[in-house]
């Protein structure tokens, strides 16, 4: 996704001379083409994220469109107040690209994971949050953000993520993509968890369970209509994300369900249970350990359907004495 980001940005910079590329000293060799072709519009601010956001605000006030980049926790939480005051309060079209969202940088440790940032950014007025599922969608999303008149956070992974999308398809910010239709249970995911949810759906289909898989690539504003459709048409909803269960997509979906009084809905937020990762391991191993690989997701889906059956049985007992 890093490569996809830099390629898309390079193309955009060719077409639009208002676009500036900023980095806080991350992306070794990723920006080579941009540096070669647009040296005056590439700025490595050094290891100074707060300054990068202020600079971006100043550039935007001079009608520039800055793209800021570094590792996800640093480009969001390190400079959260600059994002709040300089970008959100003043509603400036600055793009914030965080590499290694979730715990993609597994063995690098907790400092390099971003499992809280969506929750923090979601509370900021004027902010749009996008978490693409693969490199193709990353490129499309980067282009689409050019239309947004305000700050955008795009949470990307690292490189060589498995493809979810064909090269040609129509991307729309704020509109969830239904990747697989199914009636039994809805898996609503973003980022790396989209592929795992699709794989979980294959496992479930082998047991006759038809899962619907939704890529909620735009976490804010969340696609309320699609959430309600899932609630009405399927027996349960599971949100899946590489994020704390508090504050992220799970919370966003829960808010919609609660406010729309969709009851009873069998609902589970799958993610990290309010914990930092306590194990040093590679990304895939961590996903397995914390129940976020396809087997883990499939297991939770079965548990939720089991809970639903039990609930209805129990109700029946009660009703008929």
């Amino acid at each position, binding site marked *: 996704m890093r490569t996809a980001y830099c390629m898309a940005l390079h193309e955009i910079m060719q077409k639009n001379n208002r676009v500036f590329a900023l980095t806080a000293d991350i992306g070794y060799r990723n920006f080579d083409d941009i540096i070669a072709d647009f040296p*005056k*519009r590439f*700025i490595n*601010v*050094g290891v*100074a994220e*707060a*300054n990068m*956001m*202020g*600079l*971006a*605000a*100043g*550039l*935007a*006030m*001079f*009608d*520039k469109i*800055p793209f800021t980049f570094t590792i996800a926790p640093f480009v969001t939480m390190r400079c959260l*107040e*600059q994002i709040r*005051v*300089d970008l959100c*309060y*003043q509603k400036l079209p600055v793009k914030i690209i965080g590499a290694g969202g979730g715990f993609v940088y597994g063995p690098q440790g907790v400092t390099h994971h971003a499992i809280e940032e969506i929750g923090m950014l979601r509370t900021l007025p004027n902010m749009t949050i996008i978490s693409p599922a693969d490199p193709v969608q990353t490129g499309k999303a980067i282009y689409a953000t050019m239309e947004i008149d305000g700050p955008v956070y795009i949470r990307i992974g690292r490189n060589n993520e498995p493809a979810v999308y064909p090269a040609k398809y129509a991307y729309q910010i704020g509109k969830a993509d239904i990747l697989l239709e199914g009636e039994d249970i809805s898996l609503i995911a973003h980022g790396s968890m989209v592929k795992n949810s699709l794989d979980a759906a294959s496992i479930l289909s082998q047991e006759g369970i038809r899962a619907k898989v939704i890529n909620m690539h735009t976490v804010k504003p969340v696609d309320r209509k699609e959430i309600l459709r899932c609630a009405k048409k399927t027996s349960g909803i599971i949100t899946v994300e590489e994020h704390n269960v508090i504050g992220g997509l799970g919370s966003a979906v829960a808010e919609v369900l609660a406010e729309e009084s969709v009851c009873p809905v069998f609902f589970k937020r799958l993610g990290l249970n309010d914990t930092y990762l306590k194990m040093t391991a590679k990304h895939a191993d961590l996903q397995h350990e914390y129940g976020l690989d396809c087997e883990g997701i499939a297991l939770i889906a079965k548990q939720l359907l089991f809970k639903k059956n039990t609930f209805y049985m129990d109700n029946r007992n009660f009703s008929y004495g």
Partner: protein
Amino acid sequence: MSISAQIIKDPSELKKLALQLRIDVLKMVMSSHEGHLGAAFSCMEILVALYFNILNIKPLRPEWNDRDRFIMSKGHGCFALYAVLARRGFFSADLLDTVKQKGTIFGGHPDRDRVIGVDVSTGSLGHGLSIGSGMALAAKADGKNSRVFVLLGDGECQEGSVWEAAMFASASRLDNLIAIVDANCMQATGMTNDIISMEPFAGKWKSFGWEVFEIDGHNCYDLLNGLSKIPVKTGSPTVFIAQTVKGKGVSYMENEIMWHARSVTEKEFHTALFELESSIKLCEAG
């Protein structure tokens, strides 16, 4: 409603104007019971020198693209900025009195969406120099002559982000960026030197690659003389460390920490008004 608006070249005229504007601020504080009097009074001559002489602006075309920018990074002193903008002809000074109303456009920290002439919304300290650096960079990229002036408090310079920006500005050769430190030697709870001393303060800026000038922040002659020399050195940003007095202009407020954010009583108001009016008369008598 009259438009005063014109450029003033005579430092003694600026000095008198700064006294009159202090009365505007005093009235705003009296009627709203809000505002930071001490911080507004310490930077009054700086703002007057900038807006009535140095800044290349067109008050009736506030969005004019090639204008100089001003960032009140110490946003809490903004009552001074409101008064200056009004007197400079951005809007009617009659509006200042609306500060007491519910829904007033004149908040305790300036909002660029509400007040015409405010380039950047501020209030949280340590943001202005980074934003100013971005503006200065963009102006250079566009080949514009716009300069960017950033007013910082000395206490504000305890924010680390100020120094991130200071480092960036000199490394990027932003000679169209000018910082002015309103060095009133006080911050919210005491003397800056007692809380976290930043001495050698001028030396810090020098070592960060800035051209440094120490001036008397209440002497309009010195201010005009210094600020009109920019850029002092091609490729270097410039900082003016303006020595000022918190609460300047009213004897019982000067260097008194309680006037950082305190309002005035009716009696205090009249004493202050009398003092400022007497100073204006002295000015007029020459």
